[in-house]
C-alpha cells in the first residue's frame, strides 16, 4: 500500500504539486489523469524520488521512502516512461536484465527470468532476446519496456504515459495485456495518462489533477455519477457520461430471466457494446450466453437504459 501525505513540489515560486494526499491499495491500478502541465508526472516521480518533494511524505507499506537510499528504493519499484527509454546499445535481453544485474543476480537466474518475461509478453525468446530496440516495432518496444520494469519482481510499478506513443489498435491491445498481467502478478500500478478513456478502462481508482491539485479521487463509477463540479465534470464529458457509465458494467450483471430471439450476446461484454449491437440488429432484447455457451437469460434495451440513468 502506498500512502501519500500532504505532498508538495515547488520550483522557485511556482507550485507544481500542491498538498496532495491519497492512498493506493495493494494490488490495484490507480490512474492519475489531467491536462498537460497539471503535475501528474511530478507527482508520480516523487514516489520513486526522481523528484525530491518540497514537503510531505510518501509511505510504502508504512515505510517512509526517505528512509531508504534512493537507488535501493528504485530497484524495488518498476518504472516505465513514454517512448519506453530502452537502452539502444543493449539487446532486448540486456535491457530486461538491467535491474537484476544491478542487484547482482546470478547469470543463470537472470537468463531464466528474461525468458519467462519474454514469454509472458508474447515475445519468442529465441527470436527477440538478441535483437536491438531499433529492430522492434513500437508495440514490441513498449512490451519490452514493461518487461524490463517488472524484471526484479517489484511490488509497485510506476508508468508515465506508457502507451502514449502507440497507435489506437496496438494501444488497446497493450492496455488489455497490462490488465491481464497485473491481475496475474498482483502488482500495484500507478499510471499517468491524459487520456480519459484509458483512465476509465484501466483504473480501479482514478485521481484527477488540475493545476497542481488533486481535484477528485475515486472509482470510475463515482467519477461518472458524482463528478466534482467544474473541471472533472468537463473532463468526464456531459454527453459521453451515460455511455461511459454503461461501459463500466458487464451484461452478466443485468441479465433478466427469460429468452429472446436473435444472435446471442456474450455475458462478458459491456453494456455499451450490447446496446450498440441491439440498435444495429434492430431488436429490443437478445439472449445471453456465458463463456461455456450455457444460456443465462436475456438482456433488454429497457434494462440497459435503466442502468445508464443518472443516479438519484
Amino acid at each position, binding site marked *: 500500500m502506498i500512502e501519500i501525505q500532504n505532498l508538495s513540489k515547488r520550483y522557485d515560486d511556482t507550485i507544481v504539486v500542491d498538498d496532495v494526499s491519497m492512498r493506493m491499495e495493494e494490488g490495484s491500478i490507480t490512474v492519475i489523469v489531467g491536462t498537460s502541465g497539471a503535475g501528474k508526472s511530478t507527482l508520480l516521480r516523487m514516489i520513486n524520488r526522481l523528484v525530491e518533494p518540497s514537503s510531505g511524505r510518501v509511505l510504502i507499506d508504512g515505510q517512509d521512502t526517505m528512509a531508504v537510499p534512493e537507488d535501493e*528504493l528504485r530497484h524495488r519499484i518498476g518504472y516505465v516512461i513514454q517512448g519506453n527509454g530502452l537502452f539502444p*546499445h543493449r539487446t532486448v535481453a540486456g535491457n530486461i536484465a538491467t535491474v537484476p544485474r544491478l542487484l547482482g543476480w546470478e547469470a543463470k537466474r537472470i537468463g531464466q527470468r528474461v525468458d519467462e518475461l519474454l514469454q509472458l509478453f508474447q515475445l519468442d525468446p529465441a527470436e527477440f532476446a538478441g535483437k*536491438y530496440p531499433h529492430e522492434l516495432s513500437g508495440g514490441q518496444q513498449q512490451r519490452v519496456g514493461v518487461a524490463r520494469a517488472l524484471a526484479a519482481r517489484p511490488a509497485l510499478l510506476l508508468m508515465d504515459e506508457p502507451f502514449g506513443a502507440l497507435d489506437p489498435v496496438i494501444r488497446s491491445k497493450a492496455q488489455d495485456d497490462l490488465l491481464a498481467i497485473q491481475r496475474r502478478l498482483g502488482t500495484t500500478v500507478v499510471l499517468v495518462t491524459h487520456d480519459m478513456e484509458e483512465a476509465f478502462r484501466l483504473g480501479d481508482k482514478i485521481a484527477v489533477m488540475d493545476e497542481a491539485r488533486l481535484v477528485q479521487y475515486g472509482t470510475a463509477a463515482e467519477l461518472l455519477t458524482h463528478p466534482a463540479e467544474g473541471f472533472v465534470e468537463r473532463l468526464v464529458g456531459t454527453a459521453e457520461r451515460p455511455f461511459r457509465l454503461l461501459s463500466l458494467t458487464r451484461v452478466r450483471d443485468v441479465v433478466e430471466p427469460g429468452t429472446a430471439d436473435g444472435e446471442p450476446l456474450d455475458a462478458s461484454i459491456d453494456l455499451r457494446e450490447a446496446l450498440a449491437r441491439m440498435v444495429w440488429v434492430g431488436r429490443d432484447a437478445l439472449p445471453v450466453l456465458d463463456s461455456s455457451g450455457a444460456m443465462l437469460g436475456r438482456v433488454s434495451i429497457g434494462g440497459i437504459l435503466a442502468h445508464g440513468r443518472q443516479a438519484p
Partner: protein
Amino acid sequence: MPRLGIAFDRLGSLVAALALFAAFVLPFVTYRANRIVSGEPRLLLHALPTTMIVIVLAAVIGAAWVAVLIRRPSVRLIAAAVGLVVVAPAVGLSAGFVTPAGNSFARVSPASGFWLLVLAFGLLAADSLTRLRFGPWARLAALAVAAGAIALLLLSGAWHDLSLLKEYATRTDSFWREARHHVLLSLGSVLAAVIIGLPLGILCHRVRVVRVPMLQVLNILQTIPSIALFGMLMVPLGYLAANVPLAAAIGIRGIGTAPAFLALVLYALLPIVANTVVGLDQVPASVVDAARGMGMSRRQRLFQVKFPLALPVILTGIRIVLVQNLGLATVAALIGGGGLGTFVFQGIGQTAMDLVLLGAIPTVGLSFAAAVILDAIIELAGRAHS
C-alpha cells in the same frame, strides 16, 4: 529523361583523360646522373622494354575504356587494381632499364606521369569502393591487401633500383628508428590526450559553467600555428630543465621530444574534449531518465549508458586527432623532436627530393591507414544500435 547514344561516366572520363595524358605526354621517370643534379625526363615509351610498354599501355587503355563505358563498380575496381598492379612494379623495372649498367651514382625516380597514373587509378578505385559500400570488415581487408601488395613490392626487390629505395638503403637504421619514433610520438600524444581529455570532457558535460571557458581555451590553443606553439613551449620547458634536476633527468629539454610531445597533446585536446561533450550531451534524455528510474547510480549511468552511447562520437574525435598528429609529428623534427620529418627537412636542406619523399610517403600512408582503421572501428562500435 531518355539518353541518346552511349552514356559517358563523368568521373570515369576524367580518369581516362588523366591516365592517357599521363601515359603518352608526361614523363614516366626522371633520370639523374647523380643524387642532386637536375634530371632529364623519360617518356613511358622510352623508359621500358617493348613487351613491358605493351603491357602497361594495355592496362592503361583498358582501364580508361572501363572507366568511361562500364558502370558496374566491381568491374571498375578490378580495372583500377589491375592498373595499379601493372604500373607499380613497372616503375621499378623502368629504373633498372634506364640506369646504365654498373653505374651506382645514377638516380631514377618516378616522374609526374607515374604519379598521375597512380592518382587516376586511385580515384577510380576510391570511387568504386564508395559505390560498393563495403562494410567495415571488407574495408579493413582491402587495406590489408593493399599493405600486403606494397610490402611484396618492397621485399621482392622490384623497386630496388628506384632512387627512393637507394636513399632508404643508405639509411635503413635511421629510417626505422625515426619511423618508430614518429609512430610513438603520434600514438603516445593521442593516448595522453585521451587520458586527459576524457575526464575534462566529462567535467564539461556535468558542470555547465566549466564548459564555455574550457572549450574556448582549447580553441585558442588549436589556432596557434604549430611552429609557434613549439617555440612557445621551448621557453618554459627549457627553464624547467635548467632549474628542476628531476625534469632534466626524465628527459625534459627545451628542444627535442618533450616540447614536441607536449604540443601534440595540446593540439589533440580540443577535438577529444569537444567530441566527448557532444557525445555525452546527445544521449537521449528519456534513456538517462529510464536509467535513473531503475536505480542506476551516477557512475553506473555514466559507464553503462552514457559512455557506450557517446562512444562513436568520441572515437570520431580520436580519429581526427590521430590523423592530425601523424601529420603534425613531421613538424616536430624542426625542434629536434625526431620522427619522419627528419628526412623531410634534411631533404629540403639538401634539395634532395627523394629524401623528402622518404619522409613524406610513409607519413601519408600511416595517416591513410589510421583513418581507414578508425573509420571501421567507429562503424563497428555504433553499428549494433544505429
